[in-house]
């Protein structure tokens, strides 16, 4: 379902195309889903639960809120890079192309992420809607990369996302410092990966 939506959009995706792609019989589909929308909602639930699981696993037990946000953003970017079709469904199709129920699912997920970002300021400088707008900025970059088929680039933009998430709350100097620290973590992990290879 996610791959078909990423290729053709939800509106032009048919259950037959999904079945053919997945190698699933109509009987099997019917035993799991009430229809196309139900299947798309199932795919959305999967990306949301995968995201939350990834965040939970990435979260370090030490460090302050900003530290934890860095690891959470990194986990989300890596997940999107590894599952671009699900990312398309979650960030683009459910927002602008799907049904009202898909849209509600997107809004719920976005609200959770915005609340997480508001906590990054530890209550300093919180303003209504600021976190949602900062998240919107990050989402615009994600959507541009997904639309261009450059999802593998997303983890390399970790510093930009950390900056966007923190700057309204902690100011430019601290947001830039955290962005640089995040980039260093990424580089170190990349080097460790290369050593293992």
């Amino acid at each position, binding site marked *: 379902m996610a791959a078909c939506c*990423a*290729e*053709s*959009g*939800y*509106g*032009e995706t048919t259950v037959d195309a999904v079945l053919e792609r997945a190698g699933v019989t109509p009987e099997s589909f019917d035993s799991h889903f009430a229809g196309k929308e139900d299947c798309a909602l199932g795919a959305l639930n999967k990306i949301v639960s995968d995201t939350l699981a990834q965040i939970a696993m990435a979260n370090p037990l030490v460090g302050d809120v900003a530290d934890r946000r860095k690891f959470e953003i990194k986990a989300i970017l890596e997940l999107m890079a590894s599952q671009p079709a699900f990312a398309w469904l979650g960030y*683009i*199709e459910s927002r*602008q*192309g*799907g049904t009202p129920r898909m*849209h509600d699912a997107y809004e719920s997920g976005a609200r959770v992420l915005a609340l997480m970002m508001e906590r990054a300021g530890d209550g300093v*400088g919180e*303003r209504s*809607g*600021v976190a*949602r*707008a*900062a*998240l*919107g*900025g*990050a*989402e*615009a*970059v994600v*959507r*541009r990369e997904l*639309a*261009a088929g450059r999802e593998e680039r997303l983890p390399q*933009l970790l*510093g*930009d996302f950390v*900056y*966007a998430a923190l*700057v*309204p*709350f902690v*100011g*430019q*100097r601290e947001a*830039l410092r955290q*962005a640089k620290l995040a980039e260093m973590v990424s580089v170190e992990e990349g080097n460790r990966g290369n050593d293992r290879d």
Partner: protein
Amino acid sequence: MIETERRDKLLRAMLDELALAGYEEASVERAQAAAGVSEAEFGVEFADKDACLFAAYDHLTDQVVARASLHCGHDKPWPERIRDGLEALLEELASEPRLAWALTRSFPGIRPAAYQRYVELLGRFIPFMREGREYSEVDEELPGEVELLAVGAAEAIIFGEVDAGRAERLPQMLPEILFSVLVPFMGPDRAADEMRSAAASI
């Protein structure tokens, strides 16, 4: 060849159809009737419904960007120009809620090729943002994507209002949107000063 006035009416009518009826139900025939364009004239200009819709969207986005940029001249400091451009954009969207819906909601959702047009629309606002780097309170280079982060922040608020059927409220949200656009470039304190100044002028 359809003359400019009727062509513009046709393009506008197609976007109205899209916003009101959705992509599947959007009717070329009703749009033709609204614009006084015959089927033969339509056929000369457009291959099909999609060709007309894409042309209509391109026409609309050209207008939106042109009107916003008209207010971003070079006779004022950058934050004021951004405020003026945003104000013009918000007023235009508020005065045409149906077009705002077509612009942000119905058209981009048609299929990935249509969504690409929406990505391109956001990208057209990036050049207006670049000068903001000169207003940073730190000496270090700001992140490479800071312009799109700012545009996307404004888009998120605008989209939220249009999506909720509250496009007419957008001009009142200028201070909040301005803060979100300026904060990556100027930091929260100076962006808040600009926000208060914009609030005072409403």
